[in-house]
């Protein structure tokens, strides 16, 4: 009960001090603290106080006034102190003190902060530090703030009480009492002094103290008076001045009743006096009243004392049964007291730890939430990254694949062309050499020389042509003429041929794939003329169109009349040619055509007519004006 009073006083004091320091023009914040927050704190309504303080914070921050901030922080500290969360309280008060040390020039905020720190330290049983802070505050207060001194004295008394240093307790109690100006302060000190004397069992000293108090009429206040009368009365009754004591006690009781401040202890003390006076019934009656009040106050210790007193009373009234029952009750209340204090402590501890645990849980939950959030974010990032890289990789691979595909098709085309040329060459070459040997061995030197020249020409051109996808029409026709001439000789002049080019001024300006016409003429010779009696004739006509060459290869051979192997062979070379033309058409994006007509069906005469549409290209002109094509000229 005293403790609550003390705390409330601290709060009021702090803020009163603050108020004192503020100039009259100051803002209404401190009165607000005083009027709204302090009552709540006094009533221990910490939650409500906290709510108000929290709502104030933005406003205080906005104002950016260190005094307000310090006050606010200290109020928060008180809130936590009342909630017995001393670490939090300490944190707030430390902040307040730090802020004060940084900004305060009047040292008043520092003083307030130090007092509160000392108080909290005392609660935390860090008594050495508490004493240090308290003494610092005391000396500062002596210099600058004498009105605040009683409070500091009270604090120091509390701390020394915890330490157990009696002379120091006495010193500060009396100093505080002397310096106190407000009734409440004086009352509190008076109560504490009486308690102190009681504690040290110096009833006489107490009595003398209170008697001098009674003589001192300079200070008067109902509360103060009540405490004075009550204590003096009780002290007198203890010393055996029963009647005198009873009178004071009743006086005090009277005042207290008017103030509505009656407590069980009053009744108990008066009852004790009545007991000594031998007025058992009155005593019993008062004890009952005290008992009901004490049970209301839940003061188990007092209840125990009352029951004991009651037991003594009943014994004296010679009511042994009831006395023993009262003793039992006293005993049970003793148990309850011990229990309740132990249970209370245990509960306190439990609550403290459960709170701590909950704090930790909340913290760890927050942490794990944060962690899982982070993990989720990381996962999301990883997924996005993976998807992105997969897409990029996919695009890249597709690109590579396309490129490879394209390259492969080009390579395939070139390879096929070269292969085709090679096949024709090797087979044809050996036969040619064989034929050449015959010419030489037969002494046909002129023919042999001619043959070698033609063969050399054909070889050179086809070697060069095989390396290039496009050759000039001039070179291609030269090669074709050479080939046909050689075939002519090898076949023993079995056929004649004629090549005609229409409307083409410069055959070098037309580029076509090599060896397109040659297989067609080969077909005519091998399959058309072989075994024929009459002489064969191949006519080749080439005309230029807008983007393509129109070629016609016309023979008077056997045509398609012979089935079987022969036509198979013919169709094979046709297939190859068709495919090559398709490639060409793809590459140039121009229409190409290969059409084979059996003349027997159309004109009635034997023979095959092959019509070709071959897209051509123009040579790229280099800077020096020369054509890229550097084919041998004939």
């Amino acid at each position, binding site marked *: 009960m005293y403790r609550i009073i003390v705390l409330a006083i601290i709060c009021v004091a702090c803020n009163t001090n603050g108020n004192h320091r503020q100039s009259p023009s100051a803002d209404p914040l401190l009165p607000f603290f005083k009027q709204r927050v302090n009552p709540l704190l006094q009533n221990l309504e910490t939650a409500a106080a906290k709510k108000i303080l929290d709502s104030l914070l933005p406003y205080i921050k906005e104002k950016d006034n260190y005094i307000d901030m310090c006050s606010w922080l200290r109020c928060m500290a008180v809130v936590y102190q009342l909630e017995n969360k001393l670490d939090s309280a300490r944190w707030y008060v430390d902040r307040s003190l730090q802020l004060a040390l940084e900004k305060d020039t009047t040292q008043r905020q520092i003083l307030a902060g130090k007092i509160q720190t000392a108080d909290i330290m005392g609660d935390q049983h860090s008594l050495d530090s508490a004493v240090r802070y308290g003494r610092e505050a005391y000396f500062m207060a002596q210099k600058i703030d004498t009105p605040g001194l009683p409070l500091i004295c009270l604090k120091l008394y509390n701390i020394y009480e915890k330490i157990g240093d009696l002379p120091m307790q006495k010193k500060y109690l009396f100093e505080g009492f002397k310096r106190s100006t407000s009734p409440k302060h004086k009352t509190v000190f008076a109560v504490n002094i009486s308690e102190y004397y009681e504690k040290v069992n110096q009833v006489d000293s107490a009595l003398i103290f209170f008697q001098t108090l009674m003589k001192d009429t300079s200070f008067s206040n109902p509360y103060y008076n009540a405490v004075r009368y009550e204590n003096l009365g009780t002290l007198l009754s203890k010393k055996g001045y029963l009647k005198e004591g009873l009178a004071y006690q009743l006086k005090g009781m009277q005042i207290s009743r008017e103030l509505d401040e009656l407590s069980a202890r009053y009744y108990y003390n008066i009852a004790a006096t009545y007991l000594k006076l031998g007025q058992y019934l009155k005593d019993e009656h008062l004890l009952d009243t005290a008992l009901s009040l004490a049970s209301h106050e839940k003061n188990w210790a007092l209840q125990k004392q009352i029951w004991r007193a009651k037991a003594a009373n009943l014994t004296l009234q010679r009511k042994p049964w009831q006395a023993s029952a009262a003793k039992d009750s006293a005993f049970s209340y003793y148990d309850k007291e011990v229990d309740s204090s132990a249970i209370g402590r245990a509960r306190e501890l439990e609550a403290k730890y459960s709170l701590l645990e909950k704090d930790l849980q909340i913290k760890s939950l927050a942490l794990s939430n944060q962690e899982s959030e982070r993990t989720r974010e990381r996962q999301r990032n990883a997924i996005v990254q993976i998807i992105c890289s997969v897409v990029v990789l996919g695009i890249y691979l597709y690109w590579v694949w396309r490129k490879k595909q394209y390259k492969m098709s080009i390579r395939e085309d070139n390879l096929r062309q070269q292969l085709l040329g090679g096949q024709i060459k*090797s*087979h044809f070459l050996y036969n040619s050499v*064989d*034929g050449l*040997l015959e010419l030489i061995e037969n002494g046909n030197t002129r023919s042999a020389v001619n043959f070698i020249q033609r063969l050399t020409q054909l070889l050179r051109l086809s070697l060069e042509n095989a390396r290039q996808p496009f050759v000039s029409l001039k070179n291609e026709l030269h090669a074709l003429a050479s080939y046909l001439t050689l075939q002519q000789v090898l076949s023993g002049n079995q056929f004649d041929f004629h090549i005609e080019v229409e409307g083409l001024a410069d055959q070098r300006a037309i580029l076509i794939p090599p060896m397109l016409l040659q297989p067609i003429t080969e077909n005519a010779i091998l*399959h058309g003329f*072989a075994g024929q009696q009459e002489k064969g004739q191949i006519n080749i006509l080439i005309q230029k169109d807008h983007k393509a060459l129109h070629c016609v290869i016309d023979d008077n051979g056997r045509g398609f009349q012979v089935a*079987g192997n022969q036509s198979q062979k013919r169709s094979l070379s046709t297939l190859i040619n068709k495919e090559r033309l398709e490639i060409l058409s793809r590459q140039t994006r121009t229409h190409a055509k290969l059409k084979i007509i059996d003349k027997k069906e159309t004109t009635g005469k034997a023979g095959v007519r092959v019509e070709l549409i071959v897209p051509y290209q123009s040579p790229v002109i280099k800077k020096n004006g020369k054509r890229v094509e550097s084919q041998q000229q004939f």
Partner: protein
Amino acid sequence: MNLTTPLKVIIVEDLALLRQRLERLLQKQPGLVVTGSCGTVDEAIALINNRKPDLLLLDIELPDGTGFDILEQISVPAKVIFLTAHNDYAKQAFRCGAIDYLLKPLNEEELGEAVQKVINAQPLLREQIDIAGNSFREKKVPENIVLRSRDFAQVVAVKEIAYLQGEYGYTTVYLHDGKKLVTTSYLKEYEELLSDETFLRPHQSYLVNKLYIDRYHKKDSIIYLKDAIQIPVSSRRKEMVDQYFKKL
């Protein structure tokens, strides 16, 4: 060799100039008379059936077919020299059928040797022609090939061959049933003919059918076949053999 009745020869070659050369060269050979020449399959069949030659010079590739087409359609048994101008499939076919052939351009000496060899040899067997003809058309090695020595020609299935051992221009073919045949071909020719997929050459003198390999003793460099025959692995080919067994 009967001087009074020279051997009748028919030349089948599509290029007139080459035909002319063959005629001229063969006329120089003793004991031969060229009784006809032509350039197509059709003409050849008619000519052969009419003249009944003892020896044929056949170009493998003709405008209207192949030399095999001619052989399959004639009833007259004749000795044959094939001609070809560098054709891998033709060579493969001749080897499968164990048939002699000449490569163009023709060399007078080679032609003479070939003619003398053929005259003294047995006429071609139907199997030889069939196997070679099939091989040429299918462009692959058939399941059966012909093995030939001076005295005989025998058809064997490739899968029956356990291993081949070559020495001094002869090749001994060991079949898996224990029989062995000595042929007059080089081992290299068989190596070229028989595919890498089924045969392994662990040694200069040995070609082994993978089907009959039992195990490989790497440390001793010996391949054991299923009937406990040991094939040595030469140090030059050991790496290749090791690789092969590693991949198995």
